[in-house]
């Protein structure tokens, strides 16, 4: 029995570690999409957040400053996306893709350029100040669930951010305005809400959380910098937003599911199974597709899933 609870504890711990960056980015993208803007640039934003955060921490020994830098970098890239899609009315899908392509190239470039000259500018293989798990006294002693309180500080941040994000979206005036803009920008405009301002605001806010998610990868989950450290997480997040049905309270669910697969995979590999690793590694991606099919099907049936009606549509005032 103790062995079983130890197994559960370890799976839960790894799940939370793997799920933290996903959850931050999911929360960010939920806010962005709620305003009617689809941002497919997450992969590039997370990568650029991860590399700038790691470099900052390496030079300043201050992971907090590093997180701040990643937040700013994520916000800046999101500003570009907002400018292209809100002001210039560019296609949101292509704009997001271009942010991802640019962010990926730029992150690779910086990863080979920001490092110290004695390493030829390379950041790969360096060690920087990172966020280590800081157990909370007493709470971390609870069997199994104690794993929730043996995490790093950024994970704890989620325990506060998720309820706040839910409350803001559903219980405040600003949250109502945000939802109105995503559902029906024409009416929101008529009500006196500045649609363009709202879309800029939440696209940038969302980008900041995505950058923070990237920072968690290089500062806590897998401290260090490697090219493609995100491994497609930025894309999985797009699916997690659908899985969460655009509700911040459910953002954690998808992260647990996908973080959980990571954890089980890790355990199985540690146990030395003959099961091909490739099949296990494919699971998160296949599962994303299956989740997407089920959610789409369910939405068609019940209409209760709640994709913002104006998602990925540019708003043009003259069209009124």
């Amino acid at each position: 029995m103790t062995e079983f609870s130890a197994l559960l504890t370890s799976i839960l711990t790894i799940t939370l570690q793997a799920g933290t960056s996903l959850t931050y980015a999911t929360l960010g993208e939920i806010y962005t999409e709620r305003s009617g803007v689809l941002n497919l640039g997450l992969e590039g934003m997370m990568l650029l957040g991860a590399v700038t955060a790691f470099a900052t921490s390496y030079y300043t020994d201050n992971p907090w400053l590093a997180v701040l830098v990643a937040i700013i970098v994520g916000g800046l890239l999101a500003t570009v996306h907002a400018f292209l899609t809100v002001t210039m009315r560019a296609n949101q899908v292509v704009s997001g893709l271009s942010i991802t392509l640019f962010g990926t190239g730029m992150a690779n470039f910086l990863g080979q350029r920001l490092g110290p000259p004695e390493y030829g500018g390379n950041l790969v293989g360096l060690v920087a100040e990172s966020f280590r798990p800081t157990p909370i006294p007493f709470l971390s002693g609870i069997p199994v669930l104690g794993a929730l309180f043996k995490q790093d500080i950024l994970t704890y941040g989620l325990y506060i951010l998720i309820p706040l994000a839910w409350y803001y979206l559903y219980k405040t005036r600003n949250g109502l305005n945000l939802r109105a803009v995503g559902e029906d920008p024409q009416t929101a405009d008529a009500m006196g809400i500045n649609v363009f301002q709202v879309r800029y605001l939440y696209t940038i806010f969302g980008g900041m959380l995505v950058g923070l998610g990237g920072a968690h990868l290089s500062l806590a989950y897998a401290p260090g910098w490697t090219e493609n450290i995100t491994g497609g997480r930025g894309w999985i997040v797009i699916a997690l937003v659908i899985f969460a049905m655009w509700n911040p309270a459910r953002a954690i669910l998808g992260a647990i599911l996908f973080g959980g697969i990571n954890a089980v995979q890790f355990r199985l590999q540690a146990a030395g199974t003959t099961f091909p690793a490739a099949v296990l590694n494919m699971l998160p991606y296949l599962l994303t597709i299956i989740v997407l099919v089920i959610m789409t099907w369910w939405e068609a049936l019940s209409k209760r899933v709640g994709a913002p009606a104006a998602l990925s549509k540019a708003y043009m005032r003259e069209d009124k």
Partner: protein
Amino acid sequence: MQIIFEKRESVSRQAVILVPIVSFLVSLLFGAILLALSGANPFITYGAMFSGAFGTWNRFTETLVKAIPLMLTGLGVSIAFRMRFWNIGAEGQLTLGGVAAAGVALYLSQGLPGWLVLLLCILAGCIAGAIWAGVPAILKAYLKVDETLTTLMLNYVAILFSEQLYYVSWRAPGYNSGTAPFPETAWLPRIAGRAHIGLFFAIILAGILWFVFNRTRWGFELKIIGENQTAARYLGIDIERNIVLAILLSGAISGLAGASEVLGIARRLQQGLSVGYGYTAIIVAWMAQLNPIVILFVGILMAALLVGGDQIQMKMRLPAAVGLVLQGMILIPMLAGSIFTEYHIRIIRPQKTGVEAEA
């Protein structure tokens, strides 16, 4: 002061040509600033990139080697993009095309006449690419499942599958990774250096696609579906069937890219098949504004950035990613500029009389 956007009746011809060129220049300028900030001379770097890509005949053929898969995948995704089907799975379709061609070359080629082997390998590559694109197409057409995610997720599945094959299942004895070399009957003939006849496939396909898009009823139907689905339905066009057919073709061309890559370059399945051509294809198609003939030239330009990037890494110890940054940067000014091709922009200054100029 107020800025007014008026939708143009037809796209501005000048802007269609100018916007991509200006965008490329903006990207070069941004790259120059970045290089200067990181302590490298941008002029020398760009000069080295240019001569690295075009300086000698040998280097030019290497640029062609990289241009071939970019042209083919660029053509592939352009078909999908015309219909607003965001196929970003060219990478996976290419990978699986390469896997299928390798499978036929290695395991099904014994006892067949030589000319048939190569043909079967290429055909297998096309079919595999088509299937890999067909799954998202069917999900999209009949269940309305978002294709951006399905095509992208399948990239990872295809790449992991190919790794399983060349690291484990198909690994040749005595190698750490990679299959045995293909029999010579499965080799795609080369034209110059390592540049192979995949180049001709790309040129011929570009011509065919141009004809289909501009001169046939099917091309017209695809165009209507992309522009206005409601109108397409009123015209009695079978949207679902057309989406699936067009995406099968899109995937088949990316599969062909993968097949020509393994049959023409490495001539065995090994690491390095999936190096991001399928993603760069998106830039190629968009920068060429989905025009198949222009895609050929943009393909060469993007390949030059890759080869030039490799050259400065070898010669100047600068990151090859400079090429990727320049590629990724091009789309951003292009998207901002697309507003000039589709809209008239008028600036209205408020009158001094104090009357509110409310549109």
